């Protein structure tokens, strides 16, 4: 049978004569060498893995794939180990995208927690109303993406309890946070519903000190430190991915531990 790829009218053989010089220079060795240079080129541009470069995009695609893998690894019933009071670090270790001197304290009386997205009751919350909610305490290991860690004791209302109270859609994909220090963040719903994910108001049984997120911050035992936004001002339940401060700069979004 005639190949469907063969043109109905054969090209004029004279074309070959016209390009004889070019055809003669095609060499296997040359193609191999070209392939090697192409490979070397990827090494050169390897220095630049910003979102714009193809390597940057490939690495971010793998990171997004890793998000899915981590969601599969995450066991919603597995509790993080807890530790004795004697191991609590006082005060906790400060970390942010700026120095501790640049912390801008939040006025707790004027502060309100706004709600948005897939939530039935969007009325804002005051500090006193949140203090009346059931509280859980946990003494857990904080692990920073940089590699350091410490034991801290946090208490506050479990995020699950809060989300149930405001009639949030618990089948939504994400819970996103806005903060007073412009540090947006978002977590997966499975982590939001984990019993060791709190809207913390206390550290070591005392009101949260200013540098550590007064009056309200997130503390989840199953994610790296940077996934715990401080000075939360708004919570949104959503199906739209919204990333976060460090996440948008290349750190892995799920960052479960």
């Amino acid at each position, binding site marked *: 049978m005639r190949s469907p790829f063969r043109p109905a009218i054969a090209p004029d053989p004279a074309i070959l004569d016209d390009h004889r010089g070019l055809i003669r220079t095609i060499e296997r060795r040359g193609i191999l060498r070209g392939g090697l240079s192409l490979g070397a080129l990827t090494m050169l541009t390897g220095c630049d893995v910003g979102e714009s470069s193809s390597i940057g995009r490939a690495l971010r695609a793998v990171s997004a794939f890793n998000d899915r893998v981590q969601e599969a690894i995450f066991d919603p019933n597995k509790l993080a180990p807890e530790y004795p009071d004697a191991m609590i670090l006082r005060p906790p270790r400060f970390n942010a995208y700026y120095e501790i001197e640049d912390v801008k304290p939040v006025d707790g009386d004027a502060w309100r927690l706004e709600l948005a997205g897939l939530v039935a009751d969007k009325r804002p919350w005051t500090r006193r109303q949140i203090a009346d909610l059931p509280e859980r305490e946990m003494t857990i290991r904080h692990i920073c993406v940089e*590699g350091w860690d410490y034991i801290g004791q946090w208490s506050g209302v479990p995020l699950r309890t809060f989300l149930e109270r405001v009639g949030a859609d618990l089948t939504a994909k994400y819970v996103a946070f806005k903060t007073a220090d412009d540090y947006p963040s978002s977590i997966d719903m499975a982590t939001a519903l984990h019993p060791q994910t709190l809207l913390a108001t206390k550290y070591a049984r005392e009101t949260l000190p200013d540098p550590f997120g007064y009056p309200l911050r997130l503390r989840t035992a199953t994610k790296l430190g940077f996934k715990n936004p401080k000075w939360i001002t708004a919570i949104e339940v959503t199906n739209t991915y919204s990333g976060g401060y460090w996440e948008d700069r290349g750190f892995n979004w799920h960052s479960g531990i």
Partner: protein
Amino acid sequence: MSASPAIIRRIVTQRQMKPKRLHPWPVRVMHWANAVAMITMIGSGWGIYDDSVIFHFVYFPKSIVIGSWAAESLLWHLAAMWLLVVNGAAYLVYGFATGRFRERLLPIRVRDIVATVRDTLHLKIAHEDLTVYNAVQKVLYIVAIGAGVSQVVSGIAIWKPIQFSGLISLLGGFQGARLVHFAGMSILVGFLLVHVALALLVPQTLWAMLTGGPHLTRRAGGHR
């Protein structure tokens, strides 16, 4: 249509008769894939380490780390890990299933090690026969494979210290796991230095890993 038994028999016989090469193609593919994975993992791992060092004054200069800052190093590290793990698993399955590990790496006798070390100190590096590994080589390869497995286990512990909290306790806590991961890296870098230096000193070995090397005779795979 079915192939006649005679043709099948002929193909099978041909395959049996075809002499095996020192490094069959799967070994070569896995070796170079592993080289890319290891170098990427080590270089990016240095970048991650620098963000919070374990030992003061031990850090890696920016010029030799992969990734211009921690987030980029992490992107590289957590992408190359798939190549390392998938390729490494394939290598282990291949090594055990084909008997290559048993043929190449065993047995190791103490007196062979002593003899090899003595020869090496007298600057006699015996490499006339590439198909037989000396005792020190065998030990080095086994240590490197073990360190590779240890890196994957301690790496998983560091990546998921809560989900795999059992591994963390086994490794002496989160910082213990980091220490084990650092030690494994050090062993592998030490191995790489020796491995590459010897490959350059005896270039036939490098050529063999590219082209397959000498054909093995029936005796091959046996012991000295």
